């Protein structure tokens, strides 16, 4: 097995340049990074430092201008739209700053959505979701619509949705930005527990000091490039 196959994420010389009228904006600048399976990593940096764009490239939501990226051993930079959709469905879970639950579905339906698309049977789906709802303190709220849940509860549903389909990787973009300190801490606790017990790889884009403190590896980005990469013991 090569390093690329073993790693959850590997990027090699990734550039992402946006064209804004006549001006070129470099969002990600020559980023080479390897994230091993089971890591709990934060990409930190000020607004505009390129962390969300890098997360989007890794998750196959946007294509790099130059460079290559692999997720769970599969190269994403060359994939078709269909292949990218399949990769996102089977290998990547997303947690967004604005929760982004589907308002027409209940908490349970939101959480099982990727598994539905994967074709997982209903008993298996419900078993997994109920266990995760129990584990995250969400039991009893399964039938509520997102509008009837607090921000912290919605984000926990989003985390359950991201991990329930057993992806190789969960990408979380500012997951605590809309939460108060207590809710942030509870959410991080849940994610760390899932990371430790289920071995799910988490990569955060954040400028929240609390998230950075909880992360075992901290990659700082400035102007689209990696400024520092520190792993704590």
């Amino acid at each position: 097995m090569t390093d690329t196959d073993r790693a959850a994420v590997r990027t090699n010389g990734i550039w992402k340049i946006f064209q804004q009228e006549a001006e070129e904006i470099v969002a990600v600048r020559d980023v080479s990074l390897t994230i091993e399976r089971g890591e709990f990593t934060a990409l930190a940096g000020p607004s505009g430092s390129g962390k969300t764009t890098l997360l989007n490239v890794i998750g196959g939501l946007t294509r790099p201008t130059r460079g290559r990226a692999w997720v769970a051993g599969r190269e994403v930079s060359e994939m078709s739209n269909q292949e990218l959709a399949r990769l996102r469905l089977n290998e990547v879970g997303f947690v967004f700053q604005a929760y982004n639950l589907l308002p027409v579905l209940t908490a349970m339906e939101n959480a099982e959505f990727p598994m539905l698309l994967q074709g997982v049977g209903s008993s298996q789906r419900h078993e997994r979701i109920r266990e995760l709802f129990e584990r995250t303190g969400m039991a009893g709220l399964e039938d509520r619509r997102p509008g009837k849940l607090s921000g912290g509860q919605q984000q926990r549903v989003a985390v359950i949705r991201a991990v329930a389909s057993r992806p190789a990787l969960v990408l979380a973009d500012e997951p605590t930005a809309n939460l108060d300190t207590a809710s942030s801490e509870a959410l991080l606790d849940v994610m760390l527990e899932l990371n430790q017990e289920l071995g799910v790889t988490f990569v955060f884009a954040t400028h929240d000091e609390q998230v950075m403190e909880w992360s075992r590896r901290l990659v700082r980005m400035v102007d689209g490039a990696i400024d520092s990469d520190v792993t704590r013991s």
Partner: protein
Amino acid sequence: MRPRSQSMHLAVILVLALRNLRRQLRRSILTASAMIIGGWLLLFSFSLGDGTHETWIDSGVRMSGGHITVERPEFRVSRKIEDRLPTDVRSKTEQALKSPEIAAQVVAVSARLTINGLASSHAGARPAQVIAVDPIAEAAFSMLDDQVVEGRYLEPDDRLAAYVGLGLVQSLDLRLGSRFVVQAQDTAQDISGQLFRVVGIFRSGIPAADQSVIHIPLQTGGDWLGSDRDVTNVGVVLADSATVAAVTTYLERVLTEPIARGDAAVMGWRESNPALYAAVVIDNFGNYLLYAILFTIIAFGIVNTVLMSVLHRHREFGVLQALGLTPGQTGAIVLVEGLTLTAISGLIGVSLGLLTTWYFFGDGLDFSALIGEDMTFSGVVIDPVIVPLFRVSRLIQILAFILFVGVVASIYPARRAATIDTAEAMKFER
């Protein structure tokens, strides 16, 4: 993709589409209302239009040669007695019309000897169209027997009786019981005269008919002109003009030999009454045009509503794609929403149209205050009471049209949803 996963995707697309319609209930109801009114109007007005046309056609064909007429090809232009139908062709035609394959469609059959002649009295002479008929058969075929203003229609025992149009009666200064002479070319190509007595006077409302038509007994006509039992044409009235093509095809099959010999031609009312056909086509075209405009406006309404809904849910579509839906599946959600909305509202509209059609089915709608009672064109008296006509084929056409509008109106919004930039959509703030 695994079959199970594929069916799950379909189920997810359906659930999301239906719930989104429910979520935007007010918007959905407003859009549906336009479609419901459109479907309602479309069905009811086409039923009314079809009913009007059927009345025109029925009136027109009964005043002329029927929905279908069998005659020699030359007779249409020459109107001469030598271009009459051979007796065997007449018998074959009458026999065929009794066949179980088409008998249910046949309402009336009349064999006629139609010739042009000159009617004379002490007041002068006038050109006349003499139609020698079997009184019983003709009474079922034509409407003239009901339009008596004085006297009576012909009876089976009549010999020298004539049923004459009011205009001709006035021109010749005739009255009930008056005698007059009609001269016409007989089968020996000589001019032959016959004395008749007025037993009835009619007023059809069609000036050309009232000023020239004379009905006489078929037996008298045959004796007078030497044509014996021969007739110039056999007219057929059908229950529904929509069956003309089928009955014509059947008769053409039965009469293959005489047709090949040039002894007979089977003509539908469209050929025998082109002016009436043109009027129906033009009226239909007007209706189609009007409804094309109406539904274009409704389609724009649907595009606007569905597109607004797509733009409003930009981020949501981004999330769906981030979670693993393909662009095509994302577009399919919008397409299913548009189709569901149009299908449901179309069905409601069409049902309302059916109910309205059914309500007016008995007595019809009386437009006499608007168009009066004496309007005619192309040998057709326009009945001011219009009875809507329901046809299953029209219902299918309308439902297909509504669905077509739904698909067309949803394609652009679906394309927009399918082609969003996922990463950009995630940034999208409402």
